[in-house]
């Protein structure tokens, strides 16, 4: 009997399934945020197929493919960090989270070089060079900057979120028996990855 009393007083109410479900509901709002942009993209691509074709040639396919690989790998390390914590391998989990953050920074650095190369060629919203092009091309670059920019903001948010998780794992707030926070950060990170999976072919691979 005394053991029952003890477990009742030590009982901390948790609802991991409910917690993950809440995260998924949030992810659906993100899906519709980006979904709306994909809607705009599809209409304008339908309207200006030629211009989109010409404009997409300005983008560096190799750079885009490389960044896709970087983001996919970061998704792997994120998933592995959860397996590690499930197995009670705290240090391995932390290393995996740090690699994920590193890859996120790497992605953003590549993005920075990619954008600056465009800026250097005079292609940025409102530039004379861009405004002299056809309206379809202007729309393509407008969508390119807004969609990859918003995606980039999500990468930055995800990166900070994972950094907080790393701190919590170090302080043993996230443990073998309580890791739903890490799972939810992972869900967010994978969503960011899925969005890029669609952005990549739609902007870089129009031939």
């Amino acid at each position, binding site marked *: 009997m005394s053991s029952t009393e003890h477990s009742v007083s030590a009982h901390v109410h948790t609802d*991991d399934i409910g917690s993950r479900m809440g995260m998924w509901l949030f992810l659906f709002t993100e899906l519709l945020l980006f979904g709306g942009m994909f*809607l705009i993209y599809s209409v304008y691509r339908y309207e200006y197929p030629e211009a989109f074709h010409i404009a997409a040639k300005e983008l560096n*396919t190799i750079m885009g*493919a490389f960044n896709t690989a970087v983001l*996919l790998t970061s998704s*792997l390390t994120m998933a592995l960090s*959860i*397996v590690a914590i499930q197995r009670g391998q705290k240090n391995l989990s932390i290393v995996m989270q740090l690699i994920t953050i590193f890859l996120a920074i790497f992605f953003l650095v590549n993005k920075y070089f990619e954008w600056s190369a465009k800026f250097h060629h005079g292609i940025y919203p409102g530039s004379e060079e861009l405004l002299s092009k056809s309206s379809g091309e202007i729309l393509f670059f407008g969508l390119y900057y807004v969609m990859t920019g918003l995606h980039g903001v999500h990468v930055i948010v995800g990166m900070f979120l994972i950094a907080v998780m790393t701190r919590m794992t170090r302080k043993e707030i996230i443990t073998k028996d309580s890791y739903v926070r890490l799972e939810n950060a992972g869900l967010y990170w994978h969503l960011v990855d899925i969005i890029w999976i669609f952005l990549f072919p739609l902007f870089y*691979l129009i031939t």
Partner: protein
Amino acid sequence: MEKHEHDYYHEHSHSYGIYILVWLALMVFTAITVAVAGMDIGRFTVVTALVIASIKAYLVLTIFMHLRSETKTFVVFVIVALLFLGISFALLFADYSYQ
């Protein structure tokens, strides 16, 4: 004491192997989509690119995001969310292509 519900969930995802395999598959699909884009197959380019992207997204959803080992409710949620996005696209293009 009550049995822990989440034991069901815990039993599923403990191995590293499956994630590495899925990652390899994702990399291969990326290589394929780049290779296909280089070929001239007309209007099929967009279709192939979107099909490959959907396969990749499916892998991420089911394995990386653990939908495979979640309860049915999660799967229904995701399908409903995607359905509504699909309806938006369908209605938009139904409206748009007749203007």
